[in-house]
């Protein structure tokens, strides 16, 4: 039984890693160089938040840290900064997981949106704190909003495309549906 649970958790972690790498590589494709275009949502961050809420057991903190650090290195961001914020954000979410567990979707979205905005704004502010070149505020705020808005879409894609549901909703294995 424990082996079966471990196998499923491992499969979940592998799927997360695969999706994360796909997102990072898709952003690196040499297609749109156009400067000043509107930024899209930070899909990797939103994906991680969805996963933390839906399948917290599949996503060990080490995996979050390593994935984001890798993304930091490849996407020319300050290395380690976003990884640190994402790690702390997901851990915070995990410690509150009993509140998101039975909540209606609107509440879940609200919590996720606040967390996404919090992480991204902290990221922006730490640019000031460490005297790094600051991205333009308007565009950045736009990307914060669009990231928060993209949460339900990503949830839907993960749910119906990859079967990532809430623990204990109906399939039994996860946080304790079978107990």
């Amino acid at each position, binding site marked *: 039984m424990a082996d079966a649970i471990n196998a499923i958790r491992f499969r979940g972690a592998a799927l997360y890693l695969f999706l994360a790498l796909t997102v990072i590589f898709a952003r*690196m494709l*040499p297609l749109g160089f156009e400067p000043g275009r509107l930024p899209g949502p930070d899909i990797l961050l939103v994906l991680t938040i969805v996963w933390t809420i839906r399948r917290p057991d599949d996503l060990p903190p080490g995996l979050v840290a390593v994935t984001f650090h890798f993304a930091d290195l490849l996407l*020319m961001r300050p290395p380690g900064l976003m990884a640190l914020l994402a790690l702390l954000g997901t851990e915070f979410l995990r410690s509150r997981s009993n509140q998101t567990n039975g909540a209606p979707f609107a509440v879940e979205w609200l919590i996720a949106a606040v967390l996404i905005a919090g992480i991204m704004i902290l990221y922006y502010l730490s640019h000031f704190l460490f005297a790094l070149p600051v991205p333009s505020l308007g565009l950045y705020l736009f990307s914060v909003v669009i990231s928060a808005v993209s949460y339900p879409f990503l949830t839907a894609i993960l749910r119906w495309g990859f079967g990532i549901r809430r623990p204990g909703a109906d399939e039994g294995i996860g946080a304790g549906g079978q107990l």
Partner: protein
Amino acid sequence: MARDNGADDISLKPVRRIVVGTLAVVLFLFFLVWRIDSPRVERFRAAVIDQIMPAFTWVATPVTRTARMIEDFQSYTRIYEQNQELRRELQQMKAWREAALQLEQENAKLLDLNNVRLDPKLTYITGVVKADAGSPFRQSVILNLGARDGIRDGWAAMDGIGLVGRISGVAQKTSRVLLLTDTNSRIPATIQPAGQRTMLVGDNTPMPILEFLEDADLVRPGDRVVTSGDGGVFPPDLLVGQVTQSPDGRLRIRLAADVQHLDFLRVLRSLPGEGITEPGTLVVGPGVYESTVSQADGALEPPADAEAEDG
């Protein structure tokens, strides 16, 4: 089963906290080290990208090709207007071609008269754009040329027509080109007919700003902008683009290079020019000058030695 799980959770909690805490500290330290000693970490980053790039190329090439094909296919829908446009442009180009041919002949004649030797050191290597920075806030691309091709930091990268950016970060097999549109890009330039010196400052828009102009009245939209070679950053007289005025009244530059569709880039091998620091080095080479000075000072070395050095 249930009790086992519960017991596990309780005993694992402190361990988990320690793991998360350690990870957080490690990440923060990495960030701090980057902030303090950025070149070293950037080299590490370049090496990581160097390792990733072969795998990435396998994934990216089919996707990129497909996307470009779709883009091309979309252009069929407005093929008629495009055709008209091309005809008009061709008409203009013919006139220009005549002018260019005449100028070429004249230029050849003048070069011949002056017996000019063009700089043979200014050659180039062509590379393929493999990936971009993947963020709307950073403008840079990765080339498949690296230290093994002799690429060095600071060299200029051009597409067929105009300057695109400069090499910033070289790994063994890949290198990064910081585009002119990036907020970190500063390039000294000259505005052509007026001879005004200026600075091209990228601000993450398609048109970089012209800053530190001496006299903005002498500059008109449509003037050519070329690199000035000040500070030894670039070889002089590389075409960058044309002056234009944005709606807010600032002078900007419309790049001659097609920054939206970068495919192949030329990296110019530019070796630093010989600096003239002392008056004597202008006439004779620096080595000769120093040896004569030391002889005059000490007068101890036998002349045979000096000759051997010269040879």
